[in-house]
C-alpha cells in the first residue's frame, strides 16, 4: 500500500482489494475540531461524496467504480483507473485543439447531464476529468481478426467500413473524478458557479483557454434543460468574481 497524495481533506492510497487494484480516499480527522462534531462532519462528507458518485452514474456520467464505503475509517474504496487514463489537463497540453474538440464537446454534455439531474460537481477543473482510451478486450480482438480475414477476400469497400468501426471503438471516453465537494441542488445560481469555477480553471492552466471553454459551454447549453436561466446567471457571476454565490 502506498500513499500517492495528500490534500487538505484526505489522503489517497493505492493498494489491492479483493485482488483488484484500487484507490482508497481516506478523510482525516481535524484535531482542532471537537471530536464528535468532527466525526459527524467527515462522515457526512464521505456519504455525500459516495452518493454523488452513484448519482453521477445514474445520469449517464462515467466515474470510477465505487466498491466500498468504509465508514469506520472514513474511506472510499474505488476503482484505480490506472495508466490507461490521463488527466484532461495533460491531454489538452499535449494535443491540438482540433483533436481535443470532440472531447471538450463531450465534457460539456457530461456537465449538462449532471446539472439536469441537479447534481453539482463542486470542483470542475481539467484535473478532475480523466481521458481513457477504450481498450478492446482480447475476445473482441480475436473476432475482429477473424472478420478481417473473411473480408480480405471480399470487396475493398467493406474494408473501409471496418476501419471506420475500428476508429469508433478506439474512441476516447471521459471519466469524472473527485466528487468531494459535490452536492445536490436545483438552484441555477449554484450551477452557474460550477461552470464559472471551470472557466477560471481553464484560464489559469491553459493557453487559448477561451476557445477551449467556449466549446464546452456551447455543448453544455445545447444539452441543458435550463439553458436560459443558467446562462444569464453565469453572466452575473462573471461580473461578481471568483466562487461568489449569492445564496447563503
Amino acid at each position, binding site marked *: *500500500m502506498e500513499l500517492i497524495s495528500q490534500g487538505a481533506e484526505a489522503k489517497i*492510497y493505492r*493498494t489491492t*482489494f*479483493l485482488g483488484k487494484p*484500487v484507490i*482508497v480516499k481516506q478523510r482525516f480527522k481535524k484535531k482542532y475540531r471537537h471530536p464528535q462534531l468532527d466525526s*459527524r462532519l467527515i*462522515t*457526512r462528507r464521505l*456519504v455525500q461524496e*459516495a*452518493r454523488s*458518485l*452513484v448519482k453521477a*452514474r*445514474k445520469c*449517464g456520467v*462515467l466515474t470510477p*467504480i*465505487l*466498491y*466500498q*464505503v*468504509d*465508514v*469506520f*475509517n472514513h*474511506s472510499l*474504496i474505488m476503482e484505480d483507473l490506472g495508466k490507461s487514463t490521463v488527466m484532461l489537463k495533460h491531454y489538452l497540453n499535449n494535443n491540438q485543439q482540433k483533436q481535443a474538440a470532440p472531447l471538450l464537446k463531450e465534457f460539456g454534455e457530461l456537465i449538462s447531464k449532471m446539472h439536469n439531474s441537479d447534481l453539482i460537481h463542486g470542483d470542475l477543473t481539467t484535473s478532475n476529468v480523466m481521458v481513457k482510451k477504450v481498450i478492446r478486450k482480447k475476445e473482441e480482438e480475436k473476432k475482429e481478426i477473424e472478420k478481417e480475414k473473411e473480408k480480405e477476400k471480399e470487396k475493398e469497400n467493406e474494408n473501409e467500413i471496418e476501419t471506420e468501426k475500428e476508429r469508433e471503438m478506439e474512441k476516447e471516453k471521459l471519466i469524472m473524478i473527485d466528487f468531494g465537494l459535490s452536492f445536490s441542488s436545483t438552484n441555477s445560481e449554484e450551477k452557474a458557479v460550477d461552470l464559472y469555477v471551470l472557466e477560471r480553471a481553464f484560464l489559469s492552466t491553459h493557453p487559448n483557454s477561451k476557445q477551449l471553454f467556449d466549446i464546452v459551454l456551447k455543448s453544455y447549453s445545447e444539452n441543458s434543460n435550463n439553458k436560459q436561466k443558467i446562462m444569464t446567471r453565469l453572466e452575473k457571476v462573471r461580473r461578481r468574481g471568483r466562487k461568489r454565490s449569492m445564496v447563503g
Partner: protein
Amino acid sequence: MTHEICDWNETKNESSKITIKFFSKINNAENIFSLVKKGEIEKCFINPETIISEEHLLMATIRARRNQKNNSMKTRTIESEILWCLSPYKGVGMAFKHFGLQENFTEAIVLSFEEQPDFSVIQGEELAFNDSILQKHSNVDKIKDIYQISEDEIQLTSLKESVIMKMSVNNLRL
C-alpha cells in the same frame, strides 16, 4: 471455492477464510429451513436469483465482516449480516425475504466462515461457484428491480458494475 479475504488496511495475516458453494437440485429444503431457523447451521444461505457475480457476493461479505470487527452489526450473526449488506432496504426482514432462502427452494449459494465446513446436510448437486454459473442462474429482471437499476445505467458500463455501485451506498448510516 475458498477465498482468503482481508480488508484494504489489513495485512494477509489478518485475512479470513471463507468457503462458498453453489448447490442445485436440492431435495431437502424443508429440513434445511428448519435447521437454519433453529440456528443449528452456521452458514449463510443465499438466493442465487439475486447474485450476478462472485464480486457481488464478496463485496457484501467483506462489508459484513468489517461491521462485525467494529461491533457494529445490524443483525445478530455475520451470516445474516451478509444478507443485510446485500440488500438495499433498511429492514432486515426485506433482506431475508429477497436474498435469503425462498420457500421450497431448490437452489442455494452456501457460504461459511468455518475452518472445516461440513456441507453434507445439503442434499443436492454441487456446481462450481463462478461468474458464468451465477449468470445462468440469476434473475436479471429481479436484480434490476431490487436495486432499481435503469437500462441507461447498464448501457453505461454493465449490470455487474451497476450492482456493485448501488450496493456500496446501501444503508449508509450518518
